[in-house]
């Protein structure tokens, strides 16, 4: 319920500039920013990776720029992409293929397809066929979490990627370099955490759409530039005069891969929901705690993935603790409820849902679920749903 139309949170001045930059990077579906970055030095190489998680440290250490390919959003017109996928497959791969066949991924020197689902997996084969001259690798993440088994396998995968990127850049990945990269990314994740903390405390300062754009910027910009951007934003936004609205606090789960359009996030907020935690672009903060900066850096990365990463539908929940973690997190961020939003036709997310719902029901946490696709253009239904959800909590309070 809203008493009056919520005022548009307009960012002005330097804050406005930061958002505008993030927005323009987000809209840069031709990856011009990457081409510009490469143009500054002939030896530079960019490696595109698909959602969800890829240890960017390794690419960084090999002197490459890791670039997230998160789909074409609602900005890509699908002309040929549809001819590669049946109607019952999610939207992301069509826009990615569209970007590929229309030449908009030409600035990428290689592609990594992390193992998150069969669609991404098969997409790696399609890239191999369509781009035989590029480095295309299916990056298999272990589902066994013993260091002598999954760990060893994972390190071999990391080394194979490092080797391939090094061969392009001429920069070998030494342990020393890798440790340095870990440090740089740790700084980034600290900046990310600070922003997230602020958002949890004062969500009206950090609108979902802005937060999201900043996350996306991190998948395009060189890491130190992104860290600086985050820090500056976090500082400035605390000095702004943004005021709180009569909104409820919600947490989002299920959006780890195909991304919702930004307009959808705005719709949610307008319907009375502050997003205090989510799993959008989850790879950008998949390992929330700093990774060990000393010792064997390869093992450190493996250990971080296997034991310190966030839960995701694509990773086997060996300890059977996904439900508990979800409920704990809701409490930790003091969310009034949970939005389970999943991409249409996304098997991992949708098969996860009944389990998450069960857990929330058990814990007495309100939730609602809906599907979206990256090019969803009609928000009425979602607005109604989120609005009703917010109404119920506002009229009756949390449970």
């Amino acid at each position, binding site marked *: 319920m*809203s008493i009056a139309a919520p005022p548009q949170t307009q960012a002005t001045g330097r804050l406005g500039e930061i958002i505008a930059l993030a927005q323009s990077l987000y809209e840069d579906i031709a990856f011009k920013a990457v081409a510009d970055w490469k143009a500054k030095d002939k030896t530079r190489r960019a490696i595109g990776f698909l959602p969800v998680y890829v240890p960017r440290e390794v690419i960084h250490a090999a002197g490459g720029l890791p670039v997230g390919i998160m789909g074409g959003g609602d900005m890509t017109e699908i002309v040929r992409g549809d001819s590669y996928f049946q109607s019952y497959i999610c939207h992301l791969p069509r826009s990615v293929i569209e970007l590929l066949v229309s030449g908009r991924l030409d600035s990428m020197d290689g592609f990594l397809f992390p193992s998150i689902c069969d669609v991404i997996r098969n997409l790696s084969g399609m890239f191999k066929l369509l781009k035989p001259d590029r480095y295309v690798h299916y990056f298999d993440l272990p589902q066994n979490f013993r260091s002598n088994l999954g760990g060893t396998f994972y390190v071999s995968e990391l080394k194979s990627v490092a080797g391939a990127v090094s061969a392009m850049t001429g920069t070998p990945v030494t342990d020393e370099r890798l440790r340095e990269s870990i440090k740089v990314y740790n700084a980034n994740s600290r900046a990310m955490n600070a922003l997230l903390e602020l958002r949890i405390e004062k969500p009206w300062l950090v609108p979902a759409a802005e937060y999201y754009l900043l996350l996306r910027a991190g998948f395009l910009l060189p890491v130190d530039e992104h860290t600086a951007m985050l820090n500056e934003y976090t500082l400035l936004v605390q000095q702004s005069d943004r005021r709180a609205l009569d909104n409820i606090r919600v947490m989002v789960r299920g959006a780890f891969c195909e991304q919702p359009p930004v307009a959808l996030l705005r719709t949610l907020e307008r319907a009375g929901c502050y997003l205090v935690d989510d799993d959008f672009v989850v790879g950008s903060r998949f390992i929330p705690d700093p990774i060990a900066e000393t010792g064997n850096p390869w093992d450190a990365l493996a250990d971080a993935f296997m034991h310190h990463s966030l839960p995701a539908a694509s990773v086997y929940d060996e300890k059977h603790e996904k439900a508990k973690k979800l409920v704990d997190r809701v409490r930790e961020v003091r969310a009034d409820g949970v939005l389970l939003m999943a991409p249409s036709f996304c098997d991992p997310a949708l098969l996860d849902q009944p389990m998450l719902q069960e857990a929330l029901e058990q814990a007495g946490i309100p939730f*609602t679920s809906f*599907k979206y696709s990256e090019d969803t253009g009609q928000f009425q*239904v979602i607005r*109604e749903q989120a*609005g*009703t959800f917010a*109404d119920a909590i506002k*009229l009756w309070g949390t449970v």
Partner: protein
Amino acid sequence: MTISAGIDVGSGAVKVAIMGVEGGVEKILGSYLERIRRRNVMDVVDESFESALRDAGVRRDQLAYIATTGEGDLIPWRTGHFYGMTTHSRGALYLDPEARAAIDIGALHTRAMRFNEAGRVLQYQMTSQCASGSGQFLENIARYLGVSIEEIGPLSLNSDNAEKCSSICAVLAETDVINMVSRGVSTPNILRGIHNSMAVRIAGLVRAIKVEGVVLMTGGLARDAGLIAALQDKLKDGAAKLAVRGHELSVYAGAIGAALWGAFRHDKLTHQEASSGGT
């Protein structure tokens, strides 16, 4: 008495209800419905709002709260806005105090919601990007068959051998209907066939929210006795504890609910102000 107004702006029609609440007794003072049919929505809103006030014999300045629902958040002079499922649940409870769930079938969307004895929404489900089985769809078909909307229900009830309607698309179904007509299928049998296929979809929604007890149909299609019959049929097997009902004022459920929530909110706010000594 707290007097409040509820305005439900739908994609097919604008509904207004004026409610009076006093000492826990809720009364409908006036109402008005106007279909939009290709006209400027805001004009229709203004017109219907005035007409409803006239119907209730209430002046605008007597209103404690003007609540909107549906697409009504575009109205600049509203006091507050509530979302459709919040208002339909409340309206359904007002119309039928035994109801614990409502099915709202409007021009474009179908929603099912379950609520408790206080009108609090517990669970809901809504159709999404596809308009199959909506009011608009039925309206198109009716136009094709040359029957007016009011006749759909009674005709459908007269069916003796419902035709199977396969097409799930609201547009392609028109073609299906053409085929049926040319095969000489009678209008009642076509309509019942369509009602049956709509009922299957609606029943799916209803099952998804695990309803038990009385379900009230709200929204424009609640007037369609044929659809109600088809739905009663579909929900009969399996979930024996379900009773689907309609109400002559069902179409106003959203507007009524909005007005009631508005009054509730108004009382709560003034109460707060009073207890905090005003501001």
